[in-house]
């Protein structure tokens, strides 16, 4: 190649893009909504569940749409499973709110509307962050959490 005093900065030749790829739906669609908090049970045995709705076109998820209900301790279970089984640096959950669980509070404690709303948003952020991680997507526990009706805590951890 002859030496030239002026560099050739022309773009490299590229393949034209398929129009279906250019204008079709992207292959990275993954949306998880945490909504509709409901407090079940009575007295000391009460707890709040949240609706977890998944919409996706990622092939790694068995169902393209799914809805399950989960409680805060289920999120804690998922987090500890992922920390143990995968190399993912798992983001933190919204707080456990120990103080809110003590008696003699002026408000509704952990069943307080604004607290539930705050926690709901934190859980949504958490699950979207986690579910979008390519390594977390390989873990059976994530799929069981998101798309199986019931979490079988005695499952055998495995990779998808």
């Amino acid at each position, binding site marked *: *190649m002859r*030496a*030239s*005093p*002026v*560099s*050739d*900065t*022309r*773009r*490299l030749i*590229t*393949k034209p*893009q*398929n129009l279906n*790829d*250019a204008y*079709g739906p*992207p*292959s*990275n669609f*993954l949306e998880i909504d945490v909504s509709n908090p409901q407090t079940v049970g009575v007295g000391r045995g009460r707890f709040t569940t949240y609706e977890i709705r998944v919409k996706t076109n*990622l*092939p*790694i998820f068995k169902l393209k749409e799914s809805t399950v209900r989960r409680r805060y301790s289920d999120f804690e279970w998922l987090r500890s499973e992922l920390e143990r089984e995968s190399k993912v640096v798992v983001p933190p959950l919204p707080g456990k709110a120990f103080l809110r669980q003590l008696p003699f509070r002026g408000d509704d404690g952990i069943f307080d509307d604004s607290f539930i709303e705050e926690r709901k948003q934190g859980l949504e952020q958490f699950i*979207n*962050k986690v579910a*979008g*991680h*390519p390594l977390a*997507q390989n873990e059976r526990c994530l799929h069981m959490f998101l798309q199986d009706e019931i979490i079988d805590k005695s499952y055998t951890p495995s990779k998808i």
Partner: protein
Amino acid sequence: MSFFGFGQSVEVEILLSDAESRKRAEHKTEDGKKEKYFLFYDGETVSGKVSLVLKNPNKRLEHQGIKIEFIGQIELYYDRGNHHEFVSLVKDLARPGEITQSQAFDFEFTHVEKPYESYTGQNVKLRYFLRATISRRLNDVVKEMDIVVHTLSTYPELNSSIKMEVGIEDCLHIEFEYNKSKYHLKDVIVGKIYFLLVRIKIKHMEIDIIKRETTGTGPNVYHENDTIAKYEIMDGAPVRGESIPIRLFLAGYELTPTMRDINKKFSVRYYLNLVLIDEEERRYFKQQEVVLWRKGDIVRKSMSHQAAIASQRFEGTASLGEVRTPSQLPNNSRQ
């Protein structure tokens, strides 16, 4: 790093014979300041004179000998006491005696080998300098003058492009290409990133130039990485089939040629780091070494040749009308 050359009684200066015509080059000092030094190449003769000015013309200067040295040395910052001299030449200028009046001594180091480029880094320094010494019983008078050496290369015969397909299984597949594997310091990196599969939510993509300085040997090897440049090449989410162009001009950055195992003491290597960042700030990257080399300044070819090259760039685009070469422009006195 030069002593003032002040004894109690004499001022020493080193003057090059071609100081008027010799080019100077900027070089960063250890504390980060940029200074200009005379520029030399391998094989060039270093000649000049050592001038002695007696502060008090009536006072004689007794000495045990006057000499001048040309030294090329490597200094590791963690081992300052040991200088590794790879070039060491000496010329005696005067036998032990007396200096009764200000005078100058000519010297010439003919066709001096300067095998490596001057380098001031984070943990190591390679420098060339002249050192004039007036030996005395109690304390010597020493004057040093640093010079800068550049090593030049020509266009490599073999300079293949770098083209690779990388990714995470079923998540992200890209093919990246850089037009060359060896770039000169004022070159342009022309390349492209082609997306084969995108199942993650990418926010943007950048290309970084990383310099890695390696010092020490065996178990004491130490790598110092420095990100010289970060250049965003894409903002937004790509889809399958999309090609993102890369055009990165190297002249704007502080770069040195690639230095491999210099005198078995240190290396300086450069890497292009392609980084994709997703919506959750997760980073996916691929690092690739590139070889940098220093091109000699060439005499400008005729303007019409340059215009021909420039006009080639517009092939394949909409016609802009007739391209007028500079020779057709009025008042073009240069040829």
